[in-house]
């Protein structure tokens, strides 16, 4: 089999990595948790914010009879 020291160098770097792998995994997972939390908040509250904005814009206001011709 032909020698490929680029791959050997890659293997050497991976062997020297040690526990960095698990630390980084933990950080990535906490990022995923954070993103899931934010998307849950958006799922829960965005429709309500929409309702509040609609009511502020006067969606449920009774039409003024004086304006009718």
């Amino acid at each position, binding site marked *: 089999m032909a020698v490929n020291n*680029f791959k050997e160098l890659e293997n050497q*770097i991976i062997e020297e990595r040690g526990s960095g*792998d698990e630390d*980084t*995994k933990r*950080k*990535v997972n906490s990022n995923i948790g954070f993103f*899931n939390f934010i998307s849950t908040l958006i*799922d829960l509250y965005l429709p309500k914010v929409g309702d509040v904005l609609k009511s502020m814009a006067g969606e449920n206001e009774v039409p003024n009879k004086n304006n009718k011709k």
Partner: protein
Amino acid sequence: MIINLLNPIIVSSSSKTMTDEEAVEQYLITQNVNYFNLIYDRYTNKVYAKCISMLKDNEAAEDATQEIFVKILLSLSRFTGKSKFSTWIYSITYNYCIDMIRRDKKDIEVAVNDFSRIDHVDDNLLDAEILETNIFRLKVVLNHMNVEDKSILMMKYQDDLSIREICEMLNKTESAVKMKILRAKEKFIKIYNEHYNDKVS
């Protein structure tokens, strides 16, 4: 989303034999973090090895690996399956590292003026000589190369990417990629010859 959070975070043992593409699909459907962890476990070392080769610093490489996986997570829905999943991940990794180096202006400029001597060397012979370079020396030479030349050699020799895959990754034509590879090889040999007495080619 709420339903997904209440679901038990269990991934069946068959998931270990899943292809990358299937794991991505399942993650996008279920949002189950274990499918993403499957991808992380498969690629973390490769991504890290590329980061440390490019950034030359252990801590920066770990930080970069973390940020690259977050980037992958946020872009998963944009993976179209047009290229192999590994190629897509490597592309994000190389681009991230190149941007970091450019941003910090840490790149090395290597002036290569005399290519005439190398032009006549058999390309396959040149490949063999580069691939057989002693690991310690390989590290030294790569550390003296600029990030673009180094990354294109890594795509070719370390990731076994085809010219077509490199073209897609760099968004360049086939002839442009072939020229970039040739130039990178020439720079590799020039730097090697500057550092060591047993000259290549």
